[in-house]
């Protein structure tokens, strides 16, 4: 046995230079089949080590993108591998992108592949691309080494408190009473002064709401914010309020937010109450409303409260009536908090969901106004009280 160890060699040995690390995958529909596009960074071009063999000529891309088509995703992967001198390793794939077409048809087949082989990690971020999934992978993304890095940073820091990972989507798909929601990104051009300097970059453009495993629609702007508030996933949200007197707007940012969903039964019907607590600071006051005077801060807080509640109601209206999707987890809440009722209602939950009533209650506390009390730059006589 000992001899066989050394005679037959090491079976699993893969030199690190014989491995191509896939950092992002984009899956699209190509007719009835799947198109898989992968992005692989090229270590040789990325080196800052000043060694021989590095190249480093300007204009050389630091990554490599290729795609292939197959009946299943694994088949497409095999097709891709046929054109690669190094073995693909998905262990470092931290971004999974779904093209819009595929999202509309259904994403559950994609999930199985990503959970089965242990190399794939359920902690990868998942996003929907408005348009072709692969378009994002070819963007310039000048700030990071390769676009997948930029997407990962966007997903990780700019979207939600707990960014959506494959495990969250999986959880939403297999539990009843919860639908997935994913951030949506698209390729845009930057807007510097000269036209020649514009490069393509990637932007978070709202949230893709799913019904089951199919894309139902996008939420943008205030409704998207409201959705995040309701899910307790608002990450440093910013709201702008108009003061009751004077002109201009006041901007408040909330580093700490909390939302909890409770469901109670009233006359046999579930009634939901969403309690939102937000603690924030004024970050910009371009009005002439003096916050330091008298009751003005409380007035602003009440105004902020109304703005938040309105955003949430907007989101709920879209979800209940337009999309018929439940990313906040109304069904799940009913399942967990009122199980007996859930057992009765789960068969026709879709109808119940559209009619369910929610009471939103936001509590806003603006803790500080930064370094400055009254609005700077405006002479005292022009301040409104």
């Amino acid at each position, binding site marked *: *046995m000992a001899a*066989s*160890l050394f005679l037959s060699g090491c*079976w*699993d040995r893969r030199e690190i230079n014989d491995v191509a690390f896939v950092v992002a995958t984009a899956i699209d529909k190509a007719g009835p089949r799947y198109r898989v596009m992968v992005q692989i960074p090229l270590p040789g071009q990325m080196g800052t080590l000043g060694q021989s063999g590095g190249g480093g000529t300007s204009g050389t891309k630091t990554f490599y993108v290729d795609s292939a088509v197959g009946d299943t995703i694994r088949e497409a992967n095999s097709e891709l591998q046929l054109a690669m001198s190094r073995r693909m390793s998905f262990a470092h794939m931290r971004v999974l992108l779904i093209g819009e077409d595929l999202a509309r048809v259904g994403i559950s087949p994609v999930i199985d592949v990503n*959970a089965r082989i*242990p190399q794939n*990690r*359920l*902690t990868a971020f998942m996003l929907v691309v408005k348009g072709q999934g692969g378009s994002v992978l070819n963007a310039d993304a000048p700030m990071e080494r390769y676009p997948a890095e930029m997407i990962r940073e966007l997903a*990780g820091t700019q979207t939600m408190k707990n960014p959506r990972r494959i*495990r969250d989507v*999986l*959880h939403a798909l*297999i*539990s009843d009473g919860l639908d997935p929601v994913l951030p949506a990104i698209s390729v845009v051009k930057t807007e510097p002064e000269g036209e020649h300097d514009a490069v393509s970059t990637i932007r978070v453009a709202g949230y893709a709401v799913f019904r089951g495993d199919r894309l139902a629609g996008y939420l943008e702007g205030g409704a998207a914010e409201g959705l995040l508030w309701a899910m307790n996933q608002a990450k440093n949200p910013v709201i702008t309020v108009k003061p009751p007197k004077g002109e201009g707007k006041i901007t408040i940012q909330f580093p700490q937010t909390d939302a909890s969903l409770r469901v109670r039964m009233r006359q046999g019907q579930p009634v939901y109450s969403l309690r939102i607590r937000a603690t924030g600071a004024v970050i910009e006051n371009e009005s002439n409303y003096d916050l330091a005077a008298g009751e003005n801060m409380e007035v602003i807080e009440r105004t902020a409260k109304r703005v938040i509640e309105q955003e949430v109601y907007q989101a709920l209206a879209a979800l209940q009536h337009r999309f018929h999707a439940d990313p906040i987890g109304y069904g799940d809440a009913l*399942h*967990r*908090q009122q*199980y007996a009722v859930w057992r009765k209602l789960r068969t026709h939950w879709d109808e119940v969901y559209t009619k369910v009533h929610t009471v939103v209650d936001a509590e806003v506390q603006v803790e500080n106004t930064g370094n400055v009390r009254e609005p700077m730059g405006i002479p005292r006589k022009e301040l409104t009280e």
Partner: protein
Amino acid sequence: MEKVSRRQAILIGSSYMFIVTIINLPAQVAQVDKQGAWYDIPTAAAAAALSLCLIWAVMRRFPDQDYLAVLVNHLKLAGRMLVLLYMFFFFLISSRDLRLLVDIVSVSLLPQTPTLLIGSLVVFSGAMAVRAGIEVASRMAELFYPVLAYAVVFMLVCLTKDFHWDFLQPVFENGWQGWLRGSWVLFGYLGEVIVLPLIFTDRTFDLKRGLVALGIGTLMLELSFVGTTLVLGSEITARLMYPVYEQVRQIIITDFLDRFDLFIISLWMPMMFLKIAFDLYVVCHAGETLFHRVAPGRHLTFPVGLLTVASSMWLFRRSVDVIRLNWNWTVFTLVFALVIPACSLVLLLFRRAPAR
């Protein structure tokens, strides 16, 4: 020569309950009882405590003999048959454990390496540890168990921010049926704590210590199972092959430190080697008790080891076979942990050894 100390015996007992159970079982418990693992485990542990009490009631009548010796010496031919059965039972346990270990190594660490080689190396290590004497294996348990315990605690501490406490609700979702079925499948594994009275005499093992081992094992199991439920949710857990491994993969401390799974697996593996080593020891010890004039236990270790490798490959041809067996496995454990001790107690109720 020093004997195994009591503390070491406790560690061995609790590791018997915990090391193998966390591989596959959380998924099966989640399948039948959703998020009810936290009350299934104490139930199964209570049943295991009952079996410990039964065996202890027999053992304390015969000081200085372990349970197998009691059976052979006092139940004559029937006792010998029973010891042979126990030998067979633990041989099956060692095959199953080996298969589980080889599977998880093959899936997560070395996909291309032949499983026969992995299995042989594991059994070789285990046999080597036991051949040197049970004191050596016990000392190794004392060395590696705290490492594993700290790893489990560390894992849970890191995952605290990922806990979704509402995943534990609703309680009793599958009702009494779910509770019974969850406890059923758990008892098949928790019942293995009877290994303690099988290999130790009452110098090292008594009821209190057995219950302490049971308690510690239960605590570790609770931490793992509940942790998995809190992080992944019972639906995902139910479909995974290795839920706790997946749970470990969810540890993300910073963007940079997010890959602890293989590291924690390598901390867990030595204890698994040791469990297989102790399984081999039980088989050899039973053989020695039966045929003590023919073969001292030490010489049996390698042949039994080889047999284990062969049978683990042959009995469980596919990795799902082990999972399917889990449901029926409990019948075995019930027989060996409850039925046989109860019968032996009844038969030996009025017999007592002369005072020490």
